[in-house]
């Protein structure tokens, strides 16, 4: 489906051979050339070595997902070739390490353009195997019109820190690759769009973007425990929060992390943690305390393949049940979910704001494919974000921490504020915080805790609707699946099929009216999600009158647009 100005290059090989940096360089160079970039990687689950894959999709227009498959494939080794050769379909271009690599491909299929490049050999001739990826990049750049100028700028920026010698060595290898590429005759039509006026963008991964959003959102305290695929959020915050005088702690486990977050939040600081499914499971009990004690707290859950340890380096959207229902008793939470890297920035700010505003736990769901996907996004402008601070006691009269107010939100009081002394507690309590065992009070307090977040479905921009009027199929998608659906819808419309999209970002409380209004305009509702049970479908069935058609895959890989297109045609 790729157009000449929408190109997908996949580079694959052994982890440690420079696959990731090759991809990063290409992505950065294209972004620098004013193009839009969306990258996608899979990591080996092994500790070292193992198969690594990096795919760069680049276009002069906005790209919403990783694409169906590649247009250009560059194989660093035999394993990469074996795993991808079935995708070498007519029209694709194939660059590979030959001769001198560790494999010889089968006969090149009809319609595939092959470009053997002796990457290992050339690298070895230059005196170090470590430059194999530079050779590859040089070749790719001439073969597919990747801007040499910006590539060199990116390389220079990266290597100059390491010294003139290393920089020059790498540039030499890059030149060698160009030479090898130039020597081959270009026989396909794939080319990266020409550079345009650079835009005001950054290129950043989902995890780093969450960290950036946190700092833009006024985060003051962060505590987390390392876990794949969320750890980079902590790394980002660790690097930058001290500059803003904020605090980061790597706690002894996830229970301690969320406990510290609750303590710091009680003490008046905007606080958060980040984790993945196993960590969120461990936080279940303390998240209930946050609901009951009405303590603002943000948890970012970067979902991975489950259950249990599952597929720790793989993508899945399967923590929705846990995020919404994961604690004992009736405990209100706000659950949000991001679509892409831009959301990772903006919605982390939103999530911090909502936690402060509603004094409750907010869970922001990201996922394994977004975590490591780098995308070009408009450079955030710090001054454009409006920050919300919790309602604080005005010091008038006697202070009741859990006073029933009109909007059901009670002012908080920071330690050190005279007269505002109070207890935050996980026990059921009256207005003052003192324990209360009466049925009537329990009911009143339940209504307060649930009631205060009800209005959110109208005040927080909960969903986006893609399309107008009537449709044969309406697609409801969440998380990074949204980006895939956007493109599918464009393609389906191009074929004259009437489809609409519905993209909730506020997962809980559910904006039921919006769901109903959307469904009323569609003959059928399709809900694609990357989990086994169809978790969003479950909530749609439970909370709305809609009877959706679930479309679930649970394979550890995201959807691609072609899958959705086919499915829509199937259910039509």
């Amino acid at each position: 489906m790729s157009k000449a100005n929408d190109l997908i290059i996949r580079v694959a090989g052994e982890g440690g051979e420079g696959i990731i940096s090759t991809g990063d360089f290409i992505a950065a160079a294209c972004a620098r050339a004013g193009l839009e970039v969306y990258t996608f990687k899979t990591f080996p689950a092994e500790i070292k070595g193992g198969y690594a894959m990096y795919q760069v999709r680049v276009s002069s227009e906005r790209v919403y997902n990783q694409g169906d498959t590649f247009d250009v494939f560059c194989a660093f080794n035999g394993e990469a070739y074996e795993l991808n050769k079935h995708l070498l379909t007519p029209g694709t271009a194939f660059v590979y390490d030959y001769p001198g690599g560790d494999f010889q491909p089968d006969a090149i299929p009809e319609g595939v353009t092959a470009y053997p490049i002796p990457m290992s050999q050339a690298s070895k001739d230059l005196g170090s195997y470590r430059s194999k990826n530079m050779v590859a990049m040089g070749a790719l750049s001439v073969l597919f019109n990747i801007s040499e100028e910006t590539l060199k700028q990116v390389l220079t920026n990266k290597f100059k820190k390491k010294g003139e010698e290393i920089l020059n060595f790498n540039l030499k290898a890059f030149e060698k690759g160009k030479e090898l590429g130039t020597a081959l005759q270009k026989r396909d039509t794939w080319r990266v769009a020409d550079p345009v006026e650079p835009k005001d963008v950054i290129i950043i991964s989902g995890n780093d973007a969450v960290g950036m959003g946190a700092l833009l959102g006024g985060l003051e305290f962060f505590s987390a425990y390392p876990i794949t695929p969320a750890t980079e959020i902590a790394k980002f915050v660790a690097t930058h929060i001290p500059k803003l005088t904020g605090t980061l702690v790597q706690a002894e486990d996830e229970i301690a992390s969320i406990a510290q977050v609750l303590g710091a939040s009680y003490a008046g600081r905007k606080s958060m943690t980040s984790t993945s499914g196993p960590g969120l499971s461990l936080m279940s009990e303390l998240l209930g305390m946050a609901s009951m004690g009405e303590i603002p707290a943000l948890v970012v859950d970067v979902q991975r393949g489950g259950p249990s340890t599952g597929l720790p380096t793989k993508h899945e959207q399967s923590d929705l049940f846990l995020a919404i229902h994961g604690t004992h008793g009736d405990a209100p939470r706000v659950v949000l979910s991001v679509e892409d890297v831009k959301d990772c920035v903006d919605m982390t700010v939103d999530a911090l704001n909502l936690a402060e505003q509603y004094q409750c736990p907010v869970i922001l769901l990201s996922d394994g494919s977004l975590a490591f996907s780098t995308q070009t996004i408009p450079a955030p402008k710090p001054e454009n974000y409006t920050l919300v601070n919790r309602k604080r006691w005005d010091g008038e009269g006697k202070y009741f921490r859990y006073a029933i107010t009109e909007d059901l939100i009670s002012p908080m009081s920071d330690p050190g504020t005279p007269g505002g002394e109070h207890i935050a507690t996980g026990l059921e309590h009256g207005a003052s915080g003192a324990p209360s065992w009466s049925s009537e009070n329990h009911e009143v307090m339940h209504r307060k805790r649930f009631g205060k977040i009800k209005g959110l479905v109208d005040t927080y921009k909960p969903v986006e609707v893609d399309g107008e009027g009537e449709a044969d199929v309406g697609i409801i998608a969440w998380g990074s699946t949204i980006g895939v659906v956007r493109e599918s819808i464009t393609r389906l419309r191009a074929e004259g099929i009437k489809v609409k999209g519905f993209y909730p970002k506020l997962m809980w409380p559910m904006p039921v009216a919006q769901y109903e209004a959307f469904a009323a305009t569609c003959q059928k509702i399709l809900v694609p999600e990357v989990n086994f049970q169809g978790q969003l479908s479950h909530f749609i069935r439970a909370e709305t009158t809609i009877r959706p058609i679930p479309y679930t895959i649970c394979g550890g890989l995201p959807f691609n647009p072609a899958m959705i297109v086919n499915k829509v045609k199937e259910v039509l």
Partner: protein
Amino acid sequence: MSVAALHKKEMAPKEYKSDVNVVWCPGCGHHGILNAILRSLSELGVDPTNLVNVSGIGCSSRTPYFMQSYKMHTLHGRAGPVATGVQLARPDQLVCVTGGDGDGFAIGGGHMPHMARRNVNLTYILFDNGIYGLTKGQYSPTSRRELKAYTTPYGGPDDPMNPLLYMLTYGATYVAQAFAGKPKVCADLIKGAMEHKGFSYVNIYSQCVTYNRIDTIQYYRDLMREIPADHDPSDLGAAIELARGDTEGHRPMGLLYQVQRETLDERLAAIVKQVGGHPDFDRNKIINQYRP
């Protein structure tokens, strides 16, 4: 926490009490500990507005309700990390944990080493009654094997732990012990703990008159021996020896150990200083690093 920095107040011990009824059984050792805490606050002149008292779940963990101050009644075993969060967020406040042996060393035992080795600047007062009081009498990590309790009708299979030895090993910078029958000693040790900058741990034996019928106040009286005046509290080896008890199984009363070490908040503040941190740091500088 060194309380020197806190706004001073002149308040009688009982003025630190809240108006919530103290629900403990008559004769429970926890009463004595509560009084000792009130007394040390009064003697130090702590402004309750600058005190954050954090607890978990248990009879002892009800303590915050009975006191004037900012306070959190959190979950079983989690007072430590919650209090750590409070302290790091507000190093200018006096932070205190009150809790039980079950709360601190069974379900909460995983947090203890890290609070201590990080030297989190707070005072941990452990009400050690060798039993789970609130849940009506099960054996705890400090129960003696002789104790027949709810889930151990034939006696306990586990050897009790030694809280002082743990804390010394963990790197607490202030370690003391007393029993509820000596409110003055308790008050002095708690006072010392609150004045101490760094992680202070005070173990106070407390008789549970309802469920632990063998660890009576008389038992504790016989058990405890005052630490000799010539003990050097900066000598970790000597403190460890003391903590292990004497050959007849007596346990030490008094201050075992006290040293000064950088606290966690100080170390984190040093990092902020090192990077030239400032609340108005231009976030664009971070954003710009991600320009292609």
